[in-house]
């Protein structure tokens, strides 16, 4: 089977006053219809990778890749119009905090129907029906009410569900979730992940799950890429997490305190220069 997404030698650079910052330095991977996790600390380039795939690298950032292809489309050659057609319908992205990623002056319903009407030739009534259906699919109990609410009127968990509904309403093939639950409480986090899990499974999407939380990612994904300083330092099947070889991955796993363990002081990560090489 042909992979959904092929990335070869992707790099993202930003020219700054003090020289060129290399946020992503030549990474390669493939994604099928599976869940792939990308893990790393702040500054490791994980979010920049996600943004580059969506064509959302802000200027003056420069994206270079030998291959960046999404179901047969060469993304490196895509113009603005092609991107607009793809984003929201064939590939979609969920961001961290619904407080900032939803439009504050549009009702949730209108934001969802806007996506639909932009990409598909549907009537207002049909768009509304599908939006309500989608809100129900993300387990919002009273979709009619939430449809008419503004983002500030809903909780973080509800906002994130609305965000998921908006992103999935056109049935994309690829979903990039950038820290989709980091702004949420742990119990709400589980519900949102549960919804995401079910929708991804039922619709047969490819998912890239970006997070700093290695344990969370490994409990959710099939495969994990560990990034450090713009490079992939290790690729693991989540089942083999405990046998991680790279000292950085091991360090990340070790340094979080776990319930029922007594380790004082906690092991800290000793960064080695050669990891960034």
């Amino acid at each position, binding site marked *: 089977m042909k992979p959904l997404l092929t990335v070869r030698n992707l790099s993202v650079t930003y020219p700054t006053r003090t020289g060129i910052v290399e946020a992503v330095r030549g990474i390669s991977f493939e994604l099928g219809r599976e869940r792939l996790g990308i893990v790393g600390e702040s500054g490791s380039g994980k979010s920049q990778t996600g943004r580059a795939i969506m064509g959302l690298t802000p200027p003056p950032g420069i994206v270079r890749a030998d291959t960046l292809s999404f179901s047969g489309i060469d993304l490196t050659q895509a113009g603005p119009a092609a991107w607009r057609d793809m984003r929201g319908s064939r590939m979609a992205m969920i961001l961290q905090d619904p407080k900032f990623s939803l439009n504050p002056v549009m009702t949730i319903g209108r934001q969802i129907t806007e996506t639909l009407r932009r990409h598909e030739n549907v009537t207002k009534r049909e768009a509304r029906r599908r939006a309500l259906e989608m809100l129900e699919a993300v387990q919002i109990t009273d979709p009619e009410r939430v449809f008419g609410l503004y983002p500030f009127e809903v909780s*973080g968990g509800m906002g994130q569900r609305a965000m998921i509904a908006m992103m999935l309403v056109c049935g994309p093939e690829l979903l990039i979730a950038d820290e989709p639950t980091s702004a949420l409480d742990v119990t709400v986090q589980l519900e949102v*992940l549960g919804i995401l*899990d079910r929708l991804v499974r039922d619709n047969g999407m490819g998912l890239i799950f970006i997070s700093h939380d290695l344990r969370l990612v490994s409990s959710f994904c099939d495969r994990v890429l560990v990034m450090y300083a713009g490079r992939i330092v290790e690729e693991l099947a989540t089942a083999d997490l405990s046998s991680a070889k790279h000292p950085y991955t091991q360090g990340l796993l070790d340094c979080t*305190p776990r*319930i029922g363990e007594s380790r004082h*002081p*906690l092991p800290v990560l000793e960064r080695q220069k050669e990891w960034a090489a």
Partner: protein
Amino acid sequence: MTIRIENLSVSFDGFRALNSVSIAVDKGESFGLVGESGSGKSTLLRAVSGLAPVSGGTIAVNGEALTGSRRSRAFRRAVQMVFQDPYASLHPRQTVDRQLLEPLAIHGIGDTERRILQALDEVGLGHSFRFRYPHQLSGGQRQRVAIARALIVEPAILLLDEPTSALDASVQAEVLNLLEEVRGRHNLTFVMVSHDLGVVTHMCSRLAVMKAGEVVETLAAADLAGGRMVSDYTRQLMVASKGFSREAVPG
């Protein structure tokens, strides 16, 4: 220093943020507060420092009853707070030196030169950091400055409001180790708010689980780890903090 809080209530414009909360923290103890956002855990810390409108109940620190938002000079020196976001809690246009000088000036403490250098040493920042601005520091280094600023007046109690939740996991480990180290060295009493059960059980001997402005359960960290909890809510939190699993999620 002991903290005794009995039947404490806090209301914001009729909204009950805390509803008859009682906790007791002994001298030298490390006490945790866990709960979801909006459960009142931060409000409880703020009420102790006089930053929340108390509408009922009593707070006593070391036998001294605290009323309203007035606090004695001795209290203000003995109780220090470290906030969640080191990007927001440091003055962006003051050097580290200036921020560490401020509490000394407020309390009329002399010998500033030696104390500032000592405070930097204590939190593992070199003297070269003394004249830097917050924007020249990483998140972990900023939180070290915030801890140094709290420690410089030689407090007895530290109120820690999610001190590591804005930090990367590896940096979190370093800051947690630092906090444990200074607690041991100065025999400090900690009250620590966190949403992360792993962090709280690592740092604290006892903890209170809060929900919707009330204490659901107070238990020893060892009991929590051993699954010996009484309330369903605590159990739910435990399950949630273990990470995602297809079985744990309904639907």
